[in-house]
């Protein structure tokens, strides 16, 4: 009984170590291929369009309502202490430091990350990836590297957009609907938000972009050769990316603060 339990724990531990190693090798190999010719700017722009531009609507929508909720909750909470004037800084700091990067990345994971896993997984199942390799075209370089770059560039841009939209969402509710002072809203943002906050947000969004494209591409690339395997890979990609984003957010926050 006890030996069986220990053996099971050992197997799981070994699997986690092996899988982590494989994922890191995948990441390093993809980066290595990124800098070897032929460079593929068109592929990068194509992926940037897919990951970035096509995620704009869902990210803007999420950010707008998050900002509006922050405005609503913040206004009534701060009014209890007579501090409505700092509503702008509460909304802006919450969004720039935490909610903007985390929520935008989770939305990108759900929309673009899952699609990346499914697309690469189908290419694996239908032997399109093998076909690339037989043509002496490195599949990591052709398929994965552009997605990784697009994640690194696209997610920070989306996060920046989410921050701005969220701050305006907070303004809409806190000032336009509930009658807060517009001057106080903007001036509290100006006085409270420092370069360190913006820098931290950018750093988080870059690392989250890397996590999303890395995990989702890895899971798709190593899909088991069945429809069920593809479904499992897509689920695992979304869950693992989301969990890693939250864990990494905590780690980075504790380092940056």
């Amino acid at each position, binding site marked *: 009984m006890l030996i069986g339990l220990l053996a099971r724990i050992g197997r799981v531990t070994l699997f986690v170590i092996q899988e982590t190693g494989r994922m890191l090798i995948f990441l390093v190999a993809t980066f290595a291929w990124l800098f070897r010719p032929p460079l593929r700017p068109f592929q990068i722009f194509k992926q940037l369009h897919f990951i970035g531009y096509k995620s704009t609507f869902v990210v803007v929508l999420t950010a707008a309502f998050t900002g509006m909720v922050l405005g609503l909750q913040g206004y009534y909470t701060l009014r209890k202490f007579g501090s409505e004037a700092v509503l702008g800084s509460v909304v802006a700091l919450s969004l720039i430091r935490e909610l903007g990067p985390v929520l935008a990345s989770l939305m990108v994971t759900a929309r673009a990350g899952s699609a990346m896993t499914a697309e690469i997984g189908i290419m694996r199942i*239908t032997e399109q990836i093998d076909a690339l390799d037989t043509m*002496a075209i490195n599949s990591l370089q052709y398929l994965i590297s552009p997605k990784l770059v697009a994640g690194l560039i696209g997610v920070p841009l989306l996060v920046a957009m989410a921050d701005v939209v969220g701050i305006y969402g907070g303004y809409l509710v806190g000032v336009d609907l509930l009658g807060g002072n517009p001057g106080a809203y903007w001036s509290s943002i100006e006085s409270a938000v420092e370069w360190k906050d913006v820098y931290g947000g950018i750093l988080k969004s870059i690392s989250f972009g890397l996590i999303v494209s890395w995990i989702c591409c890895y899971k798709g690339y190593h899909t088991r050769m069945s429809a069920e395997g593809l479904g499992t890979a897509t689920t695992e990609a979304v869950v693992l990316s989301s969990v890693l984003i939250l864990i990494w957010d905590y780690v980075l926050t504790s380092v940056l603060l």
Partner: protein
Amino acid sequence: MGDGGESGWVLCPSPIAYSLLPTPGMIKLVGVEKTLGGQPVLRGVDLTIPKGKLTTIIGPSGEGKSVLLKHMIGLLQPDRGEVWVDGMEISHLRGKALNEVRKRFAMLFQSAALFDSLTVFENVAFPLREKSRLPETEVARRVEEKLEQVGLSGMGHKFPAELSGGMKKRAGLARALVMEPEIILFDEPTTGLDPLMARTIHDLIVAMHRTFGFTAVMVSHEIPEIFPISDWVAMLKDGKIVAMAPSADFQKINDPAVREFISAGGTVSLTSSCPGS
């Protein structure tokens, strides 16, 4: 270890003995073993593919014929054993060195493996655009030529999803041929096709093989159809090559496993078109 480019190899250390290969070997597998998912698939494969000939590998489903094919082009690496291509041992090659070897190959996959986001024209043009510096007019000329050869003229604008199974295979064949490779691997090229379309694909493969003279390795279940079109036939069973012979001689083999497999495929009939006869 022998040189893969050596002329007149004797290779058939299998239970059933074989004659000297009449031409130099292009691909040679020596003691290849492979385990996938804890299951031994190849258990010491020894096989020589003669240069410029069409060799068909037959055998029961799930015996690892496609796995064997993937070893020849370096998509899989053996756990043990060696894979020689024209005198070069490739099982340890990676990256650029392996890509150099792969440039001599093309492969027609079971599912045709066309890129579904590209049109038929773009699929066939893909290796040319990626691997050559030909001007676009020359790329277009070559693609149209290949599409015409496989009977897909005027279909270049269609996407793979709009094609029938047979048309997909033909488009895959056009893509395989467009770089004029020395070796083409066919992984069950007629699976899922009706008998007439299967015959059309076989005829096309034979016609292209005669025209371009490439070394061809085909994995197939189509018995007896493969006998008239193949130069050599090998049988994979229990993870080993148990028989290999010129097509006409293969049907005379008296091994029970071979007999059983052949007879299960239908009545064997050779035609005068048999290149091996």
